[in-house]
């Protein structure tokens, strides 16, 4: 039997896109749907029965002080990490890019150093940070102490711990952002700089504002989305260094999710946290693509 051309093309499309679609359904959409269903139950891990509880889990998350703190802590963390890690990433990338012209070897050495935190396992790095920031034996406080400065408890002071974790988050992601920005910088055609110079933009600042920064628009958008999703997912540092403590001061959404689901065995409630987490990421992605994409007009 001969099939018409359009039918044959349709079959080819199905053959090409079908397996991936099936995998996407089986491994992403169906699990997410199950989690969404579970979030309306009081299902406990390993239990044989469960009850439908409507929006109780969501109400509990936003009305209990522990739940609210996890949400606000996550937002504060993200609000610190995005600007600092994108800003410093750009700064380092521009610096090292310029450096390639007069000291390429050193530039490469620095690139490697900045990239090390990305390549290293964050859990292992957390252990190192814990030692560095130890309140009395750590090198940071030893230095502060001998300089006669106050020695804060970086990871066990409730008012400080979240900022310490955010700082480590920034430290960890600068290298990654730097690499992305370097790729963006390399893609800017040199003629644009020549043209800018002809038009009178000769200084480094005006070159940056008129050529580099606008041309990095798409890269910046991408870097911000990646940084934001990673920041929202903060888990390893919290789990290894503070366990959300002291007194929930560094509890974040994903850590709360882990704690509720895998320590307290409350699968239903943990599913509700997961859905809220998804919602945050979705909103974030939509905002960034809408707002920032409008300014990246010349693509």
């Amino acid at each position, binding site marked *: 039997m001969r099939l018409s051309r359009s039918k044959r093309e349709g079959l080819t499309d199905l053959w090409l896109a079908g397996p991936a679609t099936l995998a996407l359904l089986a491994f992403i959409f169906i699990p997410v749907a199950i989690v969404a269903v579970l979030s309306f139950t*009081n299902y*406990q*891990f*390993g*239990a*044989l029965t469960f009850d439908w509880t409507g929006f109780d889990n969501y109400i509990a998350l936003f009305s209990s002080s*522990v739940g609210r703190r996890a949400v606000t802590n996550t937002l504060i963390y993200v609000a610190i990490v995005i600007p600092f890690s994108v800003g410093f990433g750009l700064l380092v990338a521009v610096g090292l890019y310029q450096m390639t012209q007069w000291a390429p070897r050193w530039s490469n050495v620095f690139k490697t150093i900045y990239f090390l935190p990305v390549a290293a396992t964050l859990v292992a790095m957390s252990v190192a940070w*814990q*030692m560095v920031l*130890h*309140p*009395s*034996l750590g090198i940071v406080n030893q230095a502060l*102490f001998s300089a006669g400065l106050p020695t804060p*408890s970086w*990871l*066990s*002071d*409730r008012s400080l711990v979240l900022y310490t974790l955010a700082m480590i988050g920034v430290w960890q992601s600068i290298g990654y952002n730097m690499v992305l920005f370097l790729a963006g910088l390399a893609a800017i055609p040199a003629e644009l700089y020549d043209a800018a110079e002809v038009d009178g933009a000769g200084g480094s600042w005006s070159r940056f504002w008129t050529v580099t920064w606008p041309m990095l628009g798409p890269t910046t958008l991408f870097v911000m989305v990646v940084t934001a999703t990673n920041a929202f997912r903060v888990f390893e540092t919290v789990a290894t*260094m*503070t366990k959300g*403590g*002291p*007194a*929930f001061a560094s509890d974040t959404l994903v850590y709360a999710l882990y*704690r*509720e689901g*895998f*320590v*307290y*065995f*409350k699968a239903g409630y943990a599913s509700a946290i997961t859905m809220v987490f998804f919602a945050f990421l979705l909103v974030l992605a939509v905002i960034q693509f809408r707002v920032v994409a409008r300014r990246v007009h010349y693509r």
Partner: protein
Amino acid sequence: MKKLLMASTLAVTFGSGVQAQETEIRVHYAIPTIWADTQQLLADAFMEQNPDIQITLDGAAEGYEDGVQRLLRESISGTGPDVAYVGLNLWRVLEDRGLAQPLDGYLGDDPLSQGYTPALLSLGQFEDTQYALATSASTLVMYVNPVLVEQAGGSMEDFPDTFDGVIELAAKIDAIDAATDGVWIAPHDWRFQSLLGSYGGRPMNEDESDITFDSPEGIAAAGLYQRFAEEGGMKSYSENDARQTFPAGTLGIMFESSSLQARFAEGAGDKFDLTVKPLPVAAEDDSQVYFPTGGSAIVMLTDDEAKQQAAWDYMAFVTGPEGQKIIVENTGYAPANALVIEDESYLGNFYADNPNARVAHTQVANYAGPWYAFPGPDGVAATDLIAAALVEVTEGADTEATIEDLADTLRGILGMQ
């Protein structure tokens, strides 16, 4: 005892007239850093005596929480092990899901003669049914750095046995210099329950229908955290920080689990001669005092009757004197069988070499009591709320108000109102 056991095994084997069939028993355990070698030794020793039973160790879970989670997962898929070692405060989760099998039928009428004292059995009982047997025990003790005590003008021979005395000494140690700390205790449910027990208080009433730590005893116990901070100069260390500080020799007194003794002794090395002191007893009526016991328990999970007998033989071995001797000598935990302590032939030499272990183990023998697990799905969450309240008390919040608030919150989430 051993001969009797072997004789009965032989009798069963020959009596049935069948070739000994090998029964495989799968064993789950957690915390390989403490248990991996010990589990292998236990399995080997048991199999030597019971050639017809094959012990297979599952890959260890990282911690007790992970372990219970894995057991629950495996129970859903029907691939669970036959027996499991779980945290003494976590076996109730398995009982709650109907996974732990009752053991009363196997224990016989006179468990005391096998070394299972009522106190030890109480660690694995719920509603008059025995679901778990303790396999290793630890209680809260004081780890002391004698070098700092001497520097502060204190005396190890005349070491204080009251909390007032300890706080006074801690203040002196703290005053030595800015880099030296007096005392530290973790803001944590188990530590709090220990202090509470020292004052003779209880976290819950008998039938677990109400919180009772908002009593004068509970407020005094929580108040110790504030006094440690204000009078003894306790810093807001995290648990990991403190566990590094003490072996480094800059912390005078640390309240910690007796199971950490080997690790601390190793960390202290030649810097100081690590000394273990029993927890002060604050109540006037000694009979009310108990110290909640941490450690592990073993539960039977298989519901296959043929396997249950073999599983029980293994459980009886590891909780019996021979198994307990292996556990004590290799982990630093206190034994959970009275025979092994009473009969010098088992651990006499070990205690002669480890006076610190004797202090800790005597405290377990005298004051062992249940580590209360709060009932219901929010039981574990309750312990985190307790820890958070203790942080607030430590940082200067009004003790009475905080503890009363906490008790009310727990009544709410545990459904006790």
